[in-house]
């Protein structure tokens, strides 16, 4: 699974992307955030408040209960501020 981080999530986690294989029980966006949060202090800082994190699965906005599968591209980022 390819995981991408943008804006301050990228800065706090210290990388823009990584390939990870979460265990099978990590089957939703919310579970993935919980699993990532335990990976280290940078992740814990970036993901402390899931309510302010937006997620895209395969480049489509996804809700916390959306399923994730091996091979997906999952992006985590703050609310967008373009325009």
């Amino acid at each position, binding site marked *: 699974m390819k995981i*991408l981080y*943008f*804006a*301050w999530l990228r800065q706090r986690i210290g990388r823009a992307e990584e390939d990870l294989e979460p265990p099978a029980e990590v089957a939703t966006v919310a579970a993935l955030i919980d699993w990532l949060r335990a990976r280290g202090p940078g992740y814990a800082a970036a993901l402390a408040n899931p309510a302010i994190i*937006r997620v*895209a699965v395969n*480049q489509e*906005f996804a809700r916390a209960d959306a399923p994730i599968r091996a091979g997906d591209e999952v*992006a985590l*980022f*703050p*609310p*967008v*501020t*373009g*325009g």
Partner: protein
Amino acid sequence: MIRVQREDFDVGAELAALTTGNHAIGGLASFVGLVRDLHGPDDTGIKAMTLEHYPGMTEKMLREIEAKAGHRWPIDASLIIHRYGRLEPGDRIVLVACASRHRDAAFDACRFLMDWLKTKAPFWKLEETAHGSRWVEARRNDDQAAARWTSDPDAAA
């Protein structure tokens, strides 16, 4: 048509190209977004702004937003150009333009594109101030502006 680019754009040339050859068009509405030198409740001075985006998803979302506008209004031509990278006050960030037979569709579609772009297109602004850099926070009224076009709660994702 959508474009995501680092370079500046020529508003006059882009608008002229959009309507060339289609004489059914009676109205062309456009919006240009610029980098302001003031931001926040305290009007902090901004020296520059860096726009980060999600290559791939950005283009996909802009195409989807443009298609939504095309389904909703009788648009003959539309254009979204959004820049990324480091920009300074006064620089152009975004151009949205819609051409139609009559002005109402052009005005409404242009505003719709801009409202939706602000809540759906994956861009993030990092401001440089005298006190350091800070990420711009999403504004609640941007969500409200997008939501008025629909009863779909996803509008304010």
